[in-house]
């Protein structure tokens, strides 16, 4: 009996002990959780926070002055530039404006692999938000100011397909008041041929060569002023804050928990890859997520087009450009042309190098790369993961060895970079 009792008592004791143990375990877990939440290991190290601060839109400095364009921040010039930007008359067929490829509703690009003006270009249209921060324009940086850039497509036979003499006549006919209010009286142009320019069009070139040097310079000056007005408008197109910036604001304020409601764990992991093992931040750094330099990342060439030389040619076209910072139509003193004075030239590394675009709003802008070779962001990540050999020159990237999960995390992060365009609504529609 007693043995029985004992054993019963023992059983009863055993029966109670697990309850106590469970209770103790629960207490320990709750206590651990409480301690953990107080001494939460920080998501980001001090060094990572410095990197993140550099990517935050709030870190974007004020727009850099453009000493080569004395009208860069003139509101009247911006309003005039806005009119020119949307005016299809400034083309060879009266159907192509800047806004034909730079569509405000599509982040000022066109969603096409190759730009489509009067013909098909051999490069992808670039978006314009924040473009005034870049010292170099075009994929190969063959222009060193926004105003000089604007002149290129106007005379490119597959884009606007017009000529500078034609544009001067159009300005005198349709915009004399606007032009003269900003740039002063238009000189007499009645004796000029209807078209003309040093361009890839025999008739226009013959007409241009028949003109006196003085007339050519007069036309060039008016043409440059047209570019300066367009640039004053384009300077107003800036990127607005994305969910990424809201996350950074919370993280940089030390608010770990609000941050966790803005980014899910995959997006945090994707950001960690972006600034870490993915090496993305090497080229996509600063608040605009581009270093505005030139890089060969071995993007496959289009089979239907010759392989472009990239920066290797762009740098020589820039130096030969009469509209560059050191040219006679620039308003800058030569000491203001630092980029041009210290430009790196003739390096074998420049073959097939292109400018990394800003990654802000990148998920709204397929297809990707300089000629729209890659259809989706997932495929872009795969490209960087594999790092194939370059079709020309040498690729600067190496395989990343990312897992499927990591690639998905990086993709999730890239979707957080989208925000509104930061510009007055009237600049996003054609002028009334």
């Amino acid at each position, binding site marked *: 009996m007693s043995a029985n009792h004992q054993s019963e008592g023992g059983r009863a004791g055993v029966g109670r002990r697990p309850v106590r143990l469970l209770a103790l375990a629960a207490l320990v877990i709750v206590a651990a959780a409480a301690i953990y939440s107080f001494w939460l290991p920080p998501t980001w190290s001090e060094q990572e926070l410095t990197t993140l601060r550099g990517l935050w839109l709030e870190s974007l400095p004020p727009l850099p002055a453009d000493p080569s364009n004395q009208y860069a921040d003139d509101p009247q010039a911006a309003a005039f530039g806005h009119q020119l930007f949307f005016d299809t008359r400034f083309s060879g067929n009266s159907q192509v404006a800047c806004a034909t490829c730079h569509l405000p509703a599509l982040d000022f690009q066109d969603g096409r692999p190759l730009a489509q003006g009067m013909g098909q270009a051999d490069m992808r249209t670039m978006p314009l938000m924040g473009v005034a921060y870049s010292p170099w324009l075009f994929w190969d940086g063959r222009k060193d100011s926004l105003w000089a850039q604007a002149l290129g497509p106007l005379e490119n036979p597959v884009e606007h397909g017009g000529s500078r003499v034609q544009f001067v006549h159009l300005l005198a006919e349709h915009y004399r008041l606007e032009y003269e209010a900003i740039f002063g009286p238009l000189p007499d142009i009645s004796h000029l041929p209807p078209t003309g320019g040093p361009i890839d069009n025999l008739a226009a070139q013959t007409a241009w060569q028949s003109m006196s040097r003085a007339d050519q310079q007069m036309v060039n000056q008016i043409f440059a002023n047209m570019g300066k007005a367009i640039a004053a408008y384009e300077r107003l197109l800036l990127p607005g804050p994305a969910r990424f910036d809201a996350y950074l604001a919370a993280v940089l304020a030390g608010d770990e928990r609000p941050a966790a409601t803005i980014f899910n764990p995959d997006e945090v992991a994707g950001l960690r890859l972006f600034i870490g093992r993915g090496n993305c931040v*090497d080229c996509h*750094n600063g608040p605009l997520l581009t*270093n505005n330099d030139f890089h060969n990342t071995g993007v496959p060439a289009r089979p239907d087009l010759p392989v472009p030389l990239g920066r290797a040619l762009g740098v020589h076209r820039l130096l030969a450009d009469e509209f560059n910072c050191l040219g006679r139509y620039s308003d800058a003193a030569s000491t203001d042309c630092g*980029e041009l004075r*210290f430009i790196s030239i003739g390096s074998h590394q420049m073959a097939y190098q292109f400018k990394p675009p800003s990654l802000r709003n990148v998920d709204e802008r397929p297809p990707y790369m300089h000629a729209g070779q890659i259809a989706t962001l997932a495929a872009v990540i795969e490209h960087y993961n594999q790092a194939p050999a370059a079709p020309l020159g040498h690729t600067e990237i190496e395989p990343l060895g990312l897992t499927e999960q990591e690639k998905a995390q990086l993709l999730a992060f890239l979707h957080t970079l989208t925000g509104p365009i930061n510009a007055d609504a009237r600049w996003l529609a054609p002028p009334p």
Partner: protein
Amino acid sequence: MRKRYYGWLGGGLLLLLAVAATAVFIHRNQPPDELDTSTSKLSEAGLYQVAIIPAVDPVPINQMHSWTLEILTADGQPVEDAVIEVSGDMPQHRHGMPTRPQVTANLGQGRYLVEGLRFQMGGWWVMEFDISSPGRHDRVAFNLMLQR
């Protein structure tokens, strides 16, 4: 028997060579464990004491800026008449600087203005100065570890 022996020996040698080549490659592309990032040092042959003084501190990325270079003889006398070549490189990447910095002014007392410096990404950079003055030619390289 002897042929087989030579075969093994040859194979072994090739393997050793491959390992050595890989090691050299990896070594060349990795920053040393304790990278010397001092901003004042003796040149390679000990002819000059050279210091770099960046105008912006810490050295920024994506921002054109200038440095002052101070060149003294090993015994501390300013070198007033140096001719200096500047170059920069990222040992772990297949590219150098996006700009071509140059000495644009002799500021006197062994100080020289270097303009046109811009670094386009964070990481390990090496800036090299090739310095000639009458009777003395030497080089000095500075390591920079720029914040990403």
